[in-house]
């Protein structure tokens, strides 16, 4: 693991000097600001049951679907397309260090993008006369949820990037996997065919993987070890598969 920090600082530096990072951040903040303004407009029209933070984070899937593929599709696919993976892996670094370095850098960017949305809540607190609009429970719960679920989402993106040397293919693969995980599992949970007794274990598994249900728990302040374990184990699995994928491509080059 002694090259991990070298690789991570290299990746972060590359992110910081790349114009695409700033374009993506601006677009992200613009889009999220647009959503946030929309939410606040609803509050001016009629009183609502839940706090703005709750509604805001409920829409987490929207940026996840677009931002995660864009942030991660480049990381391993580009290395392989340019052939720099060959020079990288012939130095005394291991594949694990390379994958973890890229993953951590992508996750750091993901988290800092979401962190920047904290500004919206600061502005709201500073300029609104109604303190009820800022409810710290859902706000903190929402950010914890974003941080924990982001681990898995970014890991899926890195895995998708390890599968193809084409960035576009990697991006689309990542989008499909995330959509399957977030929306597909939700749809399965509502499907009636799983209600049969014989399929009860499958139903239990699908219920366990309901990301929207996890979100509800997090914003209510319930940080369930089972949920955290779901994201941690999913992350570990996706990263192990990424490492295996990079190594397998090397063997069958």
């Amino acid at each position, binding site marked *: 693991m002694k090259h991990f920090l070298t*690789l991570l600082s290299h990746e972060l530096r*590359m992110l910081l000097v790349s114009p695409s990072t700033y374009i993506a951040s601006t677009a992200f903040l613009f889009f999220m600001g647009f959503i946030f303004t929309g939410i606040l407009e609803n509050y001016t029209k009629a009183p609502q049951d839940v706090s703005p933070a709750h509604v805001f984070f409920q829409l987490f899937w929207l940026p996840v679907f677009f931002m995660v593929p864009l942030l991660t599709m480049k990381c391993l696919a580009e290395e392989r397309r340019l052939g*720099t993976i060959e020079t990288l892996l012939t*130095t005394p670094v291991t594949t694990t260090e390379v994958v973890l370095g890229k993953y951590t850098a992508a996750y750091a960017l993901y988290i800092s993008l979401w962190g920047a949305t904290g500004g919206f809540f600061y502005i709201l607190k500073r300029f609104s006369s109604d303190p009820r609009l800022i409810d710290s429970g859902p706000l903190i719960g929402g950010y914890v949820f974003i941080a924990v679920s982001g681990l898995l989402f970014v890991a899926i993106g890195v895995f998708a990037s390890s599968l193809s040397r084409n960035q576009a293919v990697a991006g689309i693969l990542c989008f499909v996997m995330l959509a399957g995980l977030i929306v597909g599992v939700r749809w399965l949970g509502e499907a009636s065919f799983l209600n049969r007794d014989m399929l009860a274990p499958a139903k239990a598994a699908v219920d366990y993987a309901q990301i929207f249900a996890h979100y509800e728990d997090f914003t209510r302040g319930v940080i369930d070890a089972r949920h955290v374990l779901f994201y941690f184990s999913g992350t570990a699995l996706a990263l192990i598969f990424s490492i295996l994928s990079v190594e397998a491509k090397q063997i069958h080059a």
Partner: protein
Amino acid sequence: MSAPLSPAIEVEHLVKTYAGMTAVADLSFTVARGEIIGFLGPNGAGKSTTMRILTGYLPANSGTVRICGHSVATEPDAVKRLIGYMPENNPLPEDMRVSEYLYFRGRLKEIPRRKLSPRIDEVLELCDLKRVRHKIIGQLSKGYRQRVGIAEAILAEPPVIIMDEPTIGLDPHQILIVRDLIAGLRGRMTVIISSHILPEIEMTCDRVLIINRGRVVAQGSPADLRREVLGRTTYQLITAGPLAALPALLVAIEPSLKITAQSEPDATGFVTVTLSSERTEELGEALLQALIAHAFRIRALSRAQPTLEDVFLAATRRSWDAKLTPEKAPTAAN
């Protein structure tokens, strides 16, 4: 550490197949420390594959590769610290500055931070990159990029340097610089380079290894190869006179001497004749005396120096021919 006298590179019975295609078939060779060896072969001969196996990037199907006594298969970490590798087409990150890139690579190659900056300066100087050290790699010309690749390979001063086509796509002036650079490593590092450019190899390398279809078809110093592979000398003669009597005259001088090509007579009646002999000794004097004695007018006689290109063509052709006739035999033996 292993015994200091173990050769830099030992390859024994290396086999690599891709999806049923044999890229490297039973390749064996040894490279001594400090030697510069050239790897020659037509496209698809298995040069790049062999080099990738040497670096540990690709696993072999069978056979053993040892770098300075360390097995590539069982001690990949030790081997990676012993090599500097520049792959085919020299892939470089587009959006880094030259000095940044070398710093990053130096850290990955475990050069202590304290020694890294002076070493980078040294390498930049050696590769004549000082002027572009703050330029972005993506904006450099091909010659500079190639030198950045070489600088990166020699950065950690590894005992073994593996370069896959370091002079591809360079102009003659840049080739000269790269050649001097490689020659400058002689004695300090073991260098293995592959190339299509034969004069290149001939000038820089101590020893040449010609491979075709994954096998070594000839090896030795360029001079040895000429003797061994071609096994005959060629003379070029421009003459006029009783040409019909020439073959008999040649046999009288040396039984194996014969005409291999003959041009049409030019306006003044002179003919260019190419002669070849299986003897390697000089026959020029005997030839001249005999020709003058038989009333031939001579304008020129020269002994043709076969180039490495002729050797290369002869050696690869020989291996194609060998493959065509006993096609069954080697497979049955395996």
